[in-house]
């Protein structure tokens, strides 16, 4: 297993990478974010693991018409809000938190609708990854950031959750019109996913499954709950990452929680139904007694191997002393039928660079994993070249992912 960290060398103030998705051209599209520096803005990059070439495609702030020195909170990041249609058109929506030039923080609770300082809103851009042109720009959510995005190709619509008010939105790509479905909780889910019928799903504050039924145009709160540790009551058990199980309409996901659990959801025929299966803790052995944060044993970067095994990466937070651990995250693999997990490797690259946190993952071909990472030192992505044992199997291509 070869691990290589690829820093965003041309962006000295980039600090995180949350959004990473495979395009139809078999390359990884990546958002370089700059959320901790005054006036920082986001960029879209492209990485081809076959050639190991990183390209800097788009200055997002410039593309959406919000220069970093306009006095407002900046267009500093794209969270889990980059999706690419089969025709190569990317829909990206921006997120907030980066302070304006000359400021050190942005606080939406104090400045939400401030006419001069507020984040202008999640800007939505349509970007042709082939011609490298921005086709159009709109405001997806005024004043708020976009936490996550999903694309219903058939109905030509996007689903989104805003931050910090945590409303669920439906956006019509043809009419360029937004509908606010309303608030779903206090804590943002980190993903919206779709089933084969193009119903949209996410989890609420307590890990309850929410389903948006596009036929009835309604958001249903179900009694289906994502698994959590027995000592917890489900609070903060929103979804972090979710991926389609190859060869089925099921998804596998993981919660965003202290002691995160993996799950497999079989979507039901009728909207609001389904079967949730507990795949166990991502970091077994946590007893709930020690002081732990939500990122201490964070799990993310879910993607299936060619053989149908689920890769995911877990923070090793035992030396937890800050937002991020010092130790490298562990890349694990799970047999989703038996629930058996084994570690594959530590995410430390050949030059000693440590990857402590993985946000998203894409598999390119059978042998390449590309990981969005958050590091203590440098912003970048990680490229894992898989050993042969993981490259064999019927799923040489991953199912296309239409959510961030």
């Amino acid at each position, binding site marked *: 297993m070869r691990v290589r960290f690829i820093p965003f060398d*041309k962006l000295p103030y980039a600090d995180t990478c949350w959004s990473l998705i495979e395009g139809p051209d078999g390359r990884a599209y990546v958002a370089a974010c700059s959320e901790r520096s*005054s006036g920082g803005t986001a960029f879209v990059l492209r990485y081809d693991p076959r050639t190991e070439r990183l390209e800097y*495609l788009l200055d997002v702030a410039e593309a959406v018409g919000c220069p970093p020195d306009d006095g407002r909170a900046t267009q500093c990041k794209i969270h889990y809000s980059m999706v690419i249609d089969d025709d190569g058109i990317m829909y990206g929506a921006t997120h907030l938190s980066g302070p304006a030039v000359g400021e050190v*923080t942005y*606080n939406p609770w*104090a400045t939400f*609708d401030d006419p001069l300082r507020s984040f202008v809103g999640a800007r939505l851009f349509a970007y042709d990854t082939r011609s490298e042109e921005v086709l159009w720009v709109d405001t997806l959510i005024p004043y708020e950031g976009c936490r996550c995005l999903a694309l219903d190709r058939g109905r030509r619509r996007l689903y989104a959750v805003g931050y910090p008010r945590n409303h669920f939105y439906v956006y019509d790509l043809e009419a360029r019109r937004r509908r606010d479905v309303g608030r779903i909780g206090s804590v943002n889910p980190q993903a919206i996913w779709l089933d084969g019928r193009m119903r949209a799903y996410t989890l609420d504050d307590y890990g309850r499954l929410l389903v948006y039924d596009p036929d009835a145009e309604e958001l249903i*709160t179900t009694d289906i709950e994502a698994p959590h540790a027995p000592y917890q009551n489900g609070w903060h058990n929103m979804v972090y990452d979710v991926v389609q199980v190859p060869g089925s309409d099921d998804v596998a996901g993981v919660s965003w929680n202290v002691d995160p659990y993996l799950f497999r959801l079989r979507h039901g025929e009728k909207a609001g139904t389904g079967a949730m299966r507990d795949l166990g803790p991502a970091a077994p052995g946590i007893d709930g007694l020690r002081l732990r944060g939500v990122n201490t044993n964070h799990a993310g970067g879910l993607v299936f191997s060619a053989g149908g095994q689920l890769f995911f990466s877990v923070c090793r937070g035992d030396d937890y002393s800050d937002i991020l651990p010092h130790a490298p995250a562990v890349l694990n693999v799970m047999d989703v039928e038996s629930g058996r997990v084994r570690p594959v490797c530590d995410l430390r690259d050949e030059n000693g660079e440590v990857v402590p946190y993985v946000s998203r993952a894409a598999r390119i071909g059978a042998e390449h994993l590309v990981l969005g990472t958050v590091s203590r030192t440098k912003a970048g992505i990680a490229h894992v070249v898989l050993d042969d044992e993981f490259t064999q199997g019927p799923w040489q291509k991953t199912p296309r992912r239409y959510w961030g």
Partner: protein
Amino acid sequence: MRPDLDDKQWRVPLNLDPRYKDSPLMARLYQAGRQGLVSEGYTMAKELAIRGSSRAIPPGECAITSLAMGAGWVFGATSGRCAHVFAYCTEPANEVVLDLAALKGHAGVRHALVWLPEHGLFAGASALGEPAYPGGEVFRIQPQRFVGSLIQEWNPVPPRVESLGVPVEGEGVACMIGDASRRRLYGLSDRTGTLFSLDAGSGAIETHGLIDELHRFSPELILGPDERIYGSGTCGRLMRFDPVGGSIEETGMSLPHFAGRAQYSKVGAWALDARTGLIYAGDVADGLLSVLNVSSGEARPLGKPTAQPHIRALTVAADGRVYGFAGVRDTIGHLFSHAPASGELRDLGVLTSGTERRWYGYEFDCAVASQDGRVYFGESDRISHLFVYFPPAMA
């Protein structure tokens, strides 16, 4: 077009500039930027349910738009797909929310819930924007005491709910208040602003005319210290209804406003301090808090307690402090307070809770205060809670 990054000259961000990175002022700047959530007093967000035992009033039906104090109870009513009336018991052993009634066919009860101890609870219904709406009924609801406690073996008895009729045909109830001494309810209809009254005993309804001939009325009424009914019309004119004379008249007072903005002047919420006889009024246009003395005819602005317009909820706490909430709909509003003794106005930030549910409260439309010092705020969001606020002891 691809960005040209090879020759780009990057400006060093202020917070990463080595010259300032460890400056105490930089630390202070960071600290200042973290504030904004309510940081004084104590708050609980109560789910609108027998928590852990029943479902909460559903999302989309639970926006709390009316509150009324009863003895040992806080009564509330919601707006959304279907209006509900609920009761929150303040006794420790029974401290839960009971969903008393769903008012089918009605989408709102807005500032229109009245508790008259000898007669029960009254709710005035509305359904904004429904052209075929026959009109908002006034309901009388008799909550029943239940046996036992909500800790163990509870058996609540469903309340009796009866309709007393529609005060103004084809219109909903915009607001409703009670006058316990006259055993009457007073309200406005929501399209024309017709003032009506209702006898709490017999249920007989009377109408008394328009509060404003242009129908530019504030959907608010208040019982003054002189036992007359006050409302507000065009340009914030303060109107008065004398139940004895039976006529609506102009008081000569107007809501204070910023220069040139009288035309937008409307009451968003108001509250009477029964001890002083002063009425505190929050305005919609600019979020200005004012005090009205109907005895002297004086209307005086106290200031703008938050950076936001639209004061949506206001109440006078047991110690005389005024608590309110300001913020435009679909944004994030702030809690504020006013201390009449010192004249201080304070923006207290976003009303948040770590108890019973961890929750950010962004939108509130009503507030009441109890004699024991608690202040209750009705959250009005797709998912809503009754916020119980315990103000800090007065310095």
